[in-house]
């Protein structure tokens, strides 16, 4: 039966402010603040907590009826005052919801007014405002909007420094730690934004932390305009929405746009770039990682060759995963995303010029019912994407390999690697094991060597 198309059924995306809250958690001493109803903050906290298993305080201006009628200025100001008193933040990251956007609150003006009223010589937190109406785009747009708003607010002009800005996209805390390690090993100073590697995957507390330790300091972000280069991992982000794009335009910081480095070829590009920027070869450790990965590809190639998958998630992740799957001989039957940048197909054609002849389908703006309809026809060997695909995975008896965000039904999503040689290695091992497990389960013999 054809399914209803007008409504979105089992959405394959989340709303704009969620991404902004996550990005703001990657700034040191920063409290994310949602200008809207109480529920938005609470739901987003719940959703993030279920993946990251960390306390996540998100303040809300807590609209009520009068705010909706007369504007949210009063609530926003009271809210900022209370958050400042209770959390003593250095930075408050303010994201708007559909409600405050629709009534047309002029947030920058309210913030100016607030600063004037409450300054009184006492230190005032830095306030960053990202416009994130939920009726536009999805969570990934909010993520990028917050990153861009942060550099727009903080970056300063000055003499060039030996510094590279790294905009990693919405990767896992483990991926962020790996990036920091790479930069340290290259002895290349790096401004990583956002950096929630510790705030979203930290240690136990002996005492209560109003704001968990970790994140990129505002003072470091201020130097972003003085960097010698920016690297951003994205293939579908419009220049007008990119932080690196802004720094290039406003401060002449050269911008290097790479796809998320998943797979050997894309990881090579990233390491080649670091070699060029530092004028030195990559540390031996990464040659080793690469060698082990090539070796693993050889050991496992027969398991994965021409295995058919359906891939879904944020567009950049889908593009990067497609590149990886192609280099190990797997076939993505469908590359799908709930996002709608309009760029997905073009980027994939650049990777696979004969995409259409090969019958590889590309669909953007889909929900899980759309993907399920496709799955019934395409009959993939497995699905690759976040844990929200479990419903269709179970119903149609197709295994699901969980990557990205959210992972709500498995442990350790925040510690999963995706990028670089190390991330690719982990993904490859998991894919091969998925195939082996499938074969073992299907076998009547019960082989103990597979």
């Amino acid at each position, binding site marked *: 039966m054809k399914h209803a198309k007008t*409504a979105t059924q*089992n959405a394959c995306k989340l709303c704009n402010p969620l991404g902004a809250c996550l990005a703001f958690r990657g700034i040191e001493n920063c409290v994310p603040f949602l200008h809207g*109803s109480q*529920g938005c903050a609470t739901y987003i906290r719940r959703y993030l907590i279920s993946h990251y298993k960390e306390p996540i305080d998100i303040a809300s201006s807590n609209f009520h009826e009068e705010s909706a009628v007369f504007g949210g200025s009063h609530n926003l100001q009271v809210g900022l005052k*209370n958050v400042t008193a*209770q959390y003593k933040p250095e930075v408050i990251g303010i994201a708007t919801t559909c409600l405050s956007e629709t009534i047309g609150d002029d947030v920058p003006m309210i913030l100016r007014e607030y600063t004037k009223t409450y300054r009184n010589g006492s230190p005032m937190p830095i306030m960053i405002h990202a416009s994130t109406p939920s009726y536009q785009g999805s969570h990934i747009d909010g993520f990028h909007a917050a990153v861009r708003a942060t550099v727009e607010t903080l970056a300063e002009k000055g003499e060039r420094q030996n510094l590279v800005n790294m905009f990693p996209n919405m990767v896992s805390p483990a991926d962020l730690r790996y990036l920091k390690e790479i930069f340290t090993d290259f002895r290349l100073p790096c401004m990583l934004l956002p950096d929630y590697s510790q705030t979203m995957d930290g240690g*136990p507390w002996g005492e209560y932390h109003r704001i968990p330790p970790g994140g990129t300091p505002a003072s470091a972000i201020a130097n972003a305009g003085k960097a010698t280069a920016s690297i951003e991992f994205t293939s579908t982000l419009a220049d007008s929405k990119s932080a690196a794009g802004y720094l290039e335009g406003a401060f002449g910081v050269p911008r290097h746009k790479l796809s998320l480095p998943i797979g050997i070829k894309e990881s090579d590009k990233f390491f080649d770039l670091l070699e060029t920027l530092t004028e030195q070869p990559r540390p031996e450790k990464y040659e080793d990682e690469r060698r082990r990965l090539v070796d693993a590809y050889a050991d496992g190639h027969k398991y994965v060759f021409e295995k058919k998958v359906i891939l879904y998630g944020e567009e950049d992740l889908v593009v990067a995963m497609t590149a990886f799957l192609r280099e190990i001989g797997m076939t993505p039957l469908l590359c799908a995303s709930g996002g709608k940048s309009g760029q997905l197909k073009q980027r994939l054609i650049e990777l696979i010029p004969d995409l259409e002849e090969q019958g590889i389908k590309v669909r953007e703006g889909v929900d899980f019912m759309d993907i399920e309809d496709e799955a019934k026809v395409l009959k993939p060997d497995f699905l690759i994407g976040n844990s929200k695909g479990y419903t269709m995975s179970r119903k149609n008896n197709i295994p699901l390999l969980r990557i990205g965000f959210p992972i709500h039904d498995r442990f350790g999503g925040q510690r999963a690697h995706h990028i670089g040689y190390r991330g690719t290695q982990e993904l490859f091992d998991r894919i091969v094991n998925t195939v082996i497990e499938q074969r073992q389960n299907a076998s009547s013999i019960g082989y103990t060597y597979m």
Partner: protein
Amino acid sequence: MEHIGILEGREKQVFEKKGGIETSDIACETSSLSGSVSQRACVFCGSRVVLYPVADAIHIVHGPIGCAAYTWDIRGAVSSGPELHRLSFSTDLQEMDVIYGGEKKLYLSLIELIEQYKPKAAFIYSTCIVGLIGDDIDAVCKKVAAETGIPVLPVHSEGFKGTKKDGYKAACFALMKLIGTGSTEGISKQSINILGEFNLAGEAWIIRKYYERMGIEVVSTLTGDGRIDAVKRAHGASLNVVQCSGSMTSLAKDMEEKYGIPYIRVSYFGIEDMSKSLYDVALHFPEHPEIMEAAKQVVSEEVKKLYPELQKFKKALTGKKAAIYVGGAFKTFSLIKALRSIGMSVVLAGSQTGNKDDYRRLKEMCDEGTVIVDDSNPVELSKFILEKEADLLIGGVKERPIAFKLGIGFCDHNHERKIPLAGFVGMYNFALEVYQSVMSPVWQFAPRKGGNR
């Protein structure tokens, strides 16, 4: 350690029981302070919680995608049949819809979804933005109901129009429209509706069985394992038995007014309150002493099985301290008693939505030194957990990481739980879960305990 103060404007919502001094009422039933990081949600959340388990209706969230995405299959409410409630439907409003209105999209969505799923009814939740752009969802619902022949019920749950409690009311209002539209033929005089029981992990089935063992007919469970046809004939019952009182008392009152059905408040948590909820129902049918006899029989059989089992836990847990922060205050009463029965004391008791009576009763019940809070936040909860040296926190998903970060046990007593905690068997599960969390050796590594170094 840094001193943590109470936020200005919240002092009256926090109370510490000391030396029997008579104090004024705790402030409550106010909207959350802006910027306070309340653990509460919004009006929409209240409505969604109440109606969520109705399994043969479709639930459409009219608004941008977030509200539907964050409530997709998030609760442990199980169904014995259809499972439409586990799907997430949204009109996913885009910018153009916000500008030109979303009525047409809502209409088409409804017509198509009803065609595809053939539900018994449809609930349409209006979210913040719908309240602003002025979509006439009542008119759309009326039109679709006329065209499809099923009840299509608007639920006015714009997030900013009040608190979670107003959302409960909006949901009850929608249910009230269904009640009274079905036939009451064949319903026994000794019959009840179970209200405010959401069948998390099958709890409604456990409770229902106890009543059935007493010879009571359960006409309808609102809304656990809910069915539209059962809701429609709920007015045929002789008594409404209300659990989660915050959410469903308004429906019980409306049914009393309109259909003359009296109601009682009960709780199914802990031996004491579980037993009482059976006796109280039996008391309602004094002309049938056999019901009371049967109730006594149920209690005695169940307690005989349960009591020895609990002793192992009690032995280990005696002297341990608990902090409770849950949605409704009524549940805290039961939890305090349940914890006492396994040797634990309560050092913090709080709720998101308690009222003055609830807090007065809490003050009476609690031990000296216990802190009582209304609409608290992570900073305060952490402060009291540390100051009072709690060994366990009982709450929901948002409270869980606070406990684990600070190195204490946690019991999920909210809608996401997958293990039944209601009824006599639920008391066993509760004690087991508390025991497994509090007594785990992993806490020896918590910095608070010296980190085992």
